[in-house]
């Protein structure tokens, strides 16, 4: 019996998405080492990568990178299918939905910072709604909204500025293997 090899065709798109997803996963894993004053408040550095990908390659690639980040990142830190995973997934899906709308804002007036802040608020919104519906079936979670909103505003702005700075430079795409 001859051993058969299954060759999966890998496109340049796949390499690019994998490369950015790896960067996003690295950032989100590194971020878990940071102490957090309240569960759910963290910088969300991986979203910088998502914003860069969104601006350079469009929403489809950004969605791939974001969702790969959530799944693979949770596998790395051992949170896969834990409550935190579903919260992150809800946040990622909401922010992707908002980014899909935000990319149609006139680019003359709205840059990555707007997209970042909107996505950050969507992230918090998605997580809070899921937490309310599933983990804490009590309106008490919404009392924390001001704290989460403040964090989303601050980190959304900072991440957006970093993304804007990265995007201001031309892409130095390494050759695809």
């Amino acid at each position: 019996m001859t051993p058969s090899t299954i060759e999966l065709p890998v496109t340049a798109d796949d390499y690019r998405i994998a490369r950015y997803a790896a960067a996003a996963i690295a950032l989100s894993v590194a971020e878990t080492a940071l102490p957090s004053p309240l569960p759910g408040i963290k910088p969300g550095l991986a979203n910088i990568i998502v914003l860069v990908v969104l601006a350079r390659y469009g929403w489809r690639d950004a969605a791939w990178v974001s969702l790969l980040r959530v799944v693979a990142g949770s596998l790395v830190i051992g949170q896969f299918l834990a409550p935190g995973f579903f919260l992150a997934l809800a946040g990622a899906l909401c922010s992707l939905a908002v980014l899909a709308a935000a990319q149609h804002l006139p680019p003359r007036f709205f840059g990555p910072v707007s997209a970042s802040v909107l996505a950050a608020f969507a992230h918090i919104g998605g997580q809070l709604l899921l937490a309310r519906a599933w983990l804490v079936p009590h309106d008490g979670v919404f009392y924390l909204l001001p704290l989460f909103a403040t964090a989303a505003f601050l980190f959304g702005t900072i991440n957006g500025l970093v993304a804007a700075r990265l995007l201001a430079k031309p892409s130095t795409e390494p050759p695809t293997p």
Partner: protein
Amino acid sequence: MTQRIPDGLRELLEQAAGPGQAPWRTLLRPGDWLLLLCCAALVATSFPLLWRGGVADRAIVKRDGQLVTELALNVARKYEVTGAIGTTVIEVQPGRARVLSDPGPRQYCVQQGWLTRANAVAICAPNHVTLQLAGRGGAHAGYDTINY
């Protein structure tokens, strides 16, 4: 060691660390400023949420789980309830209420002092009397003392 860093991340790090970067403010477009301003205002107005809902406006007195009376928290008064082993005295002042005295042996509900937040409860178990505050948002508007 640099080989271990994913290519995409290394690329981004190299770009971010490069010299000759433009100042931060040039990265913001007019709409960004507007959006940031609006968001900052929204966040600021959301802060009263942290304290809202905790405001109590009436005290509910129960004996054996049955409603005895509801006292509005806007006038100071005292109310006496006869329970299983004696009389519990509830004192109400504007915005707060407490168990002033109770025949129970351990006086837990008396030592709890003033209750100020909606859904706070003082339970005088030996006398089968409870005092609970309620707010405008109904029974589930705030935390109760059991699961928070």
